[in-house]
């Protein structure tokens, strides 16, 4: 069987186009490749330089005393920020305890029970708006609602401010996690005579858990790093926590305070605190991924 061809040599169909030019190695193709790879590397640069800077500046002072001692007064050296670490953990914890049930249950309502209703549409719209809310507004709101009514700054107020901050994120990512569960699973459950609740509780929620955890971890990372909401609500404290009704130290406020002082030691402490904050969030992220991975 002979092929009709304009050239005297057999045409290689896999790499050459009709004009005999190499397809993969055409000039436009090469340029686009270079641009894409180059931009990918470029985006890594700020990320890697932040990580490098954190380790370079923060590692020197990273000792166990950081976890066990209290912040040094102005001019002093030594000390640590154990109370700030504890404060951050507590207030992020409070925020999660408040925001997670609201977020997940609302997501279940707007995706499983009444996806097309006006209420669901309103909730989605408002949640998307609120994801852009400046964090200082959360702080001011919590100030009005908790601090003014209870008469004092507290960890509760700080946790509440953070909860408002992360609620929209948790709700929307939970909704996406639920959407990611195949409709076929729900159909099978209903076909077997499952109720709405049984279908959600036994099939949909377990399958959506890894994706939900991603959303919650995003929220944790954001909450742990915010300073503005805490300045109006939890303030700061030089001492260990006695009760959640008192002003409470936090890593973000500590970093803010120390980095503006004219003392070298405090500034170095701020770097170390930044490093600890990043490491804590990373550790939380990794453990959540491990515990909730899809089996």
């Amino acid at each position, binding site marked *: 069987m002979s092929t009709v061809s304009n050239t005297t040599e057999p045409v290689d169909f896999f790499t050459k186009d009709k004009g005999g030019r190499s397809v993969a190695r055409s000039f436009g193709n090469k340029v686009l490749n270079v641009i894409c790879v180059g931009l990918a590397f470029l985006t890594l640069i700020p990320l890697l330089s932040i990580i490098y800077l954190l380790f370079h500046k923060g590692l020197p002072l990273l000792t166990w005393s950081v976890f066990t001692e209290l912040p040094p007064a102005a001019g002093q050296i030594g000390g640590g920020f154990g109370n700030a670490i504890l404060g951050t953990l507590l207030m992020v914890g409070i925020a999660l305890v408040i925001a997670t049930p609201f977020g997940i249950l609302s997501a279940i309502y707007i995706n499983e029970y009444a996806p*097309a209703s006006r209420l669901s549409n309103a909730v989605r719209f408002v949640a998307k708006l609120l994801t852009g809310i400046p964090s200082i507004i959360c702080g001011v709101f919590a100030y009005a609602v908790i601090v003014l009514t209870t008469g004092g700054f507290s960890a509760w107020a700080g946790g509440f401010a953070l909860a408002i901050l992360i609620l929209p994120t948790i709700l929307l990512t939970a909704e996406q996690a639920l959407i990611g569960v*195949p409709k*076929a*699973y729900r*159909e*099978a*459950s*209903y*076909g*077997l*005579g*499952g*109720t709405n609740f*049984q279908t959600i509780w*036994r*099939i949909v929620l377990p*399958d959506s858990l890894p994706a939900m955890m991603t959303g919650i971890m995003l929220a944790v990372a954001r909450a742990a790093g915010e300073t503005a909401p805490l300045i109006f609500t939890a303030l700061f404290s030089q001492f260990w926590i006695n009760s959640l009704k008192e002003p409470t130290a936090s890593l973000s406020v500590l970093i803010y305070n120390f980095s503006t002082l004219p003392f070298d030691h405090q500034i170095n402490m701020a770097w170390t605190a930044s490093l600890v904050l990043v490491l804590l969030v990373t550790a939380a992220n990794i453990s959540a991924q491990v515990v909730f991975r899809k*089996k």
Partner: protein
Amino acid sequence: MTPTLPQPRADFLKVQDFNFYYGKKQALFNVNMEIPERQVTAFIGPSGCGKSTLLRNFNRMNELIDGVRHEGQILLNGRSIYDKKIEVIALRRSIGMVFQKSNPFPKSIYENIVYSMRIAGINGKSVLDETVERSLKGAALWDEVKDRLNESALGLSGGQMQRLCIARAIANRPEVLLMDEPCSALDPIATAKVEDLIHTLKKEFTIVIVTHNMQQATRCSDRTAFFYLGKLIEFDDTQKIFSNPSQKQTEDYITGRFG
């Protein structure tokens, strides 16, 4: 003295003057039919003729879609399935459904089968174990999976998954088994296994199967209903439909002149 089964009813599933609408669009027009007990009834017809729609009405699965409505009656063993006193959940538990694309839960094989029992509140281990063995044997899958009941159902082959779905559907001993093109995603060998299964299952269950494959209808069913554009054109013994149909449209369809 073993009790004898009561005589099988000829109108076990009865459809009366049934009209069905998706919003403004009418999908079924005045359907009347009586489906006999413990036999296999096949629904055939071109795409969009309403056969799956009617099938999904038997266990009221269409109610999961917004904006649907119906007129007329469907009676299961003499009782209307739309009776206000019947809970949809209870109805669905007494009717098993196998879907076109097999949809096992992302759980173990064991948990897939006992799901219908757990949601009914039955959690005793011996009952569940017995159910799993009975259902898997009934679906001709027991020998292949008996050593890996706790492994994920998603690790099975396509044909095995569909047989698992059949086992899951019969676990709670439903009255009727509805099958919506169960073999369309399977290879010929798996299809043959499922068809053999249907022959065995019909001794115990009333089966309604929607199929695009006319040879399958010939092989598997006792009675066949031909649908076209939402109307029931002809409903008779399979032998008669495929050798000597009374309606011209039926004849055109089975000889491949359209559809």
